[in-house]
């Protein structure tokens, strides 16, 4: 099941929260949705899950629009950033509810997972800790066997062990059943580890959408030591998008082909240079900085 988002628009009280986003994600992959606070990620996720009706454009799973489509929604599971359960329910009664809602529900999976995570299925969910509630949400989601799993800040409150287990189960479903996962998170280190592709949104707009390997192959950090600092034309020539100078050492971020970059640098006779891959966090900071969302220093009173 592939996802196609076409020219998706959503406005709240006249303000565009999702602005003409177009992207596609393939089944059996994990897509990371990155963005600044208030960028519209949660709104976008709710559009993907068919909770919100698009103002314009559409969200299509295997060519079929999700909004108002019961059949499609039965295969798409959305886990919001705040676990929610029906009032007064236990994990078992929630399981019965899910069983009646999701045709691909597996009771065997539910029992196995509940046991694995050590959850008391008879305990009211309202009495559980935040992390336990999160685990319960994942148990219910995995037992529903969705083809698409939409996760909004999913690992908040989970300890590293459970976090790892949850991710492992997710990987199994991806590998064995071709499940598509779309994760919205601010934990870029974690995203870098598990995502196949990412998209970055800011103020409702999609800044870029790419395979993570491609991003790593086109974004670099250069550290160059010169005997004499190069002229300004160097930065234009090498296509530097951001640079810092400390003494005779220039640190720059460049976008482009690694070989071409190396060719251009050597023309300016550096004493030494190093081309390093950018971390996702650095890419995020750089892309956001380009849109005026940079880290700025402040000395408080």
């Amino acid at each position: 099941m592939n996802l196609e988002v076409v020219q998706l628009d959503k406005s709240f009280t006249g303000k565009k929260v999702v602005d003409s986003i177009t992207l596609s994600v393939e089944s059996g992959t994990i897509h990371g949705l990155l963005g600044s606070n208030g960028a519209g990620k949660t709104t976008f996720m709710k559009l993907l899950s068919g909770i919100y009706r698009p103002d314009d454009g559409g969200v299509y799973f295997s060519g079929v629009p999700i909004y108002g489509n019961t059949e499609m929604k039965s295969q798409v599971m959305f886990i919001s950033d705040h676990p929610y359960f029906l009032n007064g329910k236990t994990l078992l009664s929630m399981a019965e509810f899910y069983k009646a809602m999701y045709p691909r529900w597996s009771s065997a999976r539910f029992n196995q997972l509940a046991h694995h995570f050590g959850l008391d299925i008879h305990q009211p969910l309202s009495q559980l800790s935040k992390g336990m509630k999160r685990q319960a949400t994942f148990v219910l989601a995995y037992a529903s066997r969705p083809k698409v799993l939409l996760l909004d800040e999913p690992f908040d409150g989970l300890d590293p062990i459970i976090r790892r287990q949850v991710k492992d189960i997710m990987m199994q479903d991806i590998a064995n059943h071709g499940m598509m996962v779309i994760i919205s998170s601010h934990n870029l280190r974690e995203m870098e580890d598990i995502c196949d592709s990412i998209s970055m949104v800011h103020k409702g707009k999609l800044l870029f959408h790419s395979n993570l390997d491609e991003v790593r192959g086109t974004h670099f950090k250069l550290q160059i030591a010169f005997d004499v600092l190069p002229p300004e034309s160097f930065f234009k020539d090498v296509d530097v998008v951001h640079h810092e100078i400390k003494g005779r050492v220039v640190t720059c971020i460049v976008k482009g082909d690694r070989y071409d970059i190396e060719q251009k640098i050597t023309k300016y006779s550096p004493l030494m240079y190093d081309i390093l891959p950018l971390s996702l966090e650095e890419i995020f900071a750089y892309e956001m900085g380009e849109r005026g969302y940079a880290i700025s220093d402040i000395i408080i009173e």
Partner: protein
Amino acid sequence: MRSATSLLNRTLLLHFTGSVFWLSILFLIGNILLQPLALWIASINVRINDGYVPSGNPLDMMAGFQLVFGMVYVMFLAAFLFGYKNKEQSIDFMHALPMKRHYLLSHALLSGFINILIPIITTSIILFFERHFLVFDISFIDIIAWGAYSVFVLVTVFSVSVFCGFLVNNILVHLQLILIVFFLPVIFWTLTVAVADALFEGVGIIPFTGNGESLISGIVDNTFPIFAVQQIYSGFVFWKILMWSLFTVFLFIGSYILYGRNQNEKVHHTFNQSWLRNILVAFLSISGMLLVGLIISVTLPNGLLIFILSFLFGTAFAYIAIEMSFQGTVRLERNIKSLVTTAALLILFWTVFITGWNQYVAYVPEESEIDSVRITNSSSSSYGSNGNINGEMGEDYLYIDDGEIIAEAVQAHEEATAAPALKDISQGYEWVEVSYRMKNGNYINRRFDDHKREPYKEILGKVNSGKYARNNDVLFNVGDPSKLLRVEISAPGGAVTIEEASPFIEEYQRAMLGVDEDIPANILNGGVPLLNGVAEFEQSYYSGQASIYNPVLQKAIKGEEELAGFLGVEGSEEMYTLTLGEVDRQKFFQDYQMLTPKKFINKYELKVLSDNQMAEVVKAVDEGKLDGRGQKVLVYRSVVEDWADAEEITLSMDQEFNILGIE
């Protein structure tokens, strides 16, 4: 479990039903307390006290309370069933489920119906078995009718409550909106009319004595909770029930449409439609303005400044209070659109109010279109009878179709409307009411305060004449004597109750056709009425004039008391008799109502009767020697003159003395 084709998801239905389970248990217990238990207690009381078993349907005794309780329950039922849509997490969860909104709504509605039906059916079953142990006679059909009507009422309230829920996203505002939808129209209109009544001459909210609808009855009778309870006591109007049923269907369809169009993302807004919110704020503010303004301007009646200020304060107070309620905080955010809407509707309201009520009070009907007229005042002995409230009296009761009286009434009305329309409350609380029965069957009622009474003074004297005794006779005008419970006759010296009312009234009415009188009835101008008759029905009673010249009435009184004592003749300390002879009878009776006792006695050179003469008069009266059109009249001081302080008020002759035609 759900299949692809199943219409019903049992789990979802159980979820909704379970979410209001305890609420429905509460309703069931309340229902049992208000019907089966209340009937049981009433039955025991009747048995223990060997008391009176009330006629009519025993289920009606508590049905009003039970319905009100049920309506409150249904409001909460709808609010809690659809409570999920008031929180972001819950509405997101529900709308992420693989089901269409109409499917969700259908299950919630079905759950609502179940939670209405089961308590009613359970109560009906208890009543079915209980009835055999009660002193009351409750038929199976009565229980079915009670249950069916309860379900109709509760489902109608449920439809309104559900519909309102899709307009708002907050449970408290939801509950408020249900009350607003039901009661804002009637409150708004009643306050509008009340303010008009306080400000304009000619406006009377409820006709005190005239027939026809009150200015608010149309909206009061069609306010559903009031209508629902009224139906129990005044009988079912099936076309209205049908209309409300259609309205209910319309609202359920509307709920599906609204829910289908509702936007999840508005969950943080109190109202889904801001224009609706702003209009409600405006109407509630205007209602508050009218209420506060009415209280202050009535309490402090003098001064235009106070009048204007009171309405301004009322508006500000109501606006702030309503915004706090709708915003759910006391720290208000400025809402320019709401402020502008309120200001605009305020200007529109006052424009329509002043123009409309000016036109209303200036209108005088065409003489040619008037069938008959009723003119009365605050001193009328028919005061409080509210005309022919439930249609139990004949059509002509209190109305005079004499062309001369109609022409004079129209002229007096025109004179009254020529004066300024704004009321001066300092003039007091006396009034003159004119009620026209038009040839098309409609009624036009106007009420003027005391200072407008002058044009009506002469005409009031005329209609007070015995000539119109039959029109004013409360007993003669009883429409269906078989529905009467009892008749009471009171006079200055006694009171008689006639339990066998129906045959008495039939005889009285036959005899009245042969009675001729022109003695003033003393029913107007503050005179002490000689006789006051009360016709009591199950739901209402009528008070007014009765004729002492009717032999059937004389016979009934004689069966209980001496006539002279009853009429207050015996015991009166001052009596005069006069043979009218050449005296202008009409002028004489007019003077009787207008002149002070001293002037009247001097003008007609009346000689006070000696003790012997008084004794003879008493004997003659006891023997029933009365004649409503006789040549001789007896004028005697009333034994109940203490109602007015003679030192402060100059009383007219008719206010201190009764008059009686004697042979």
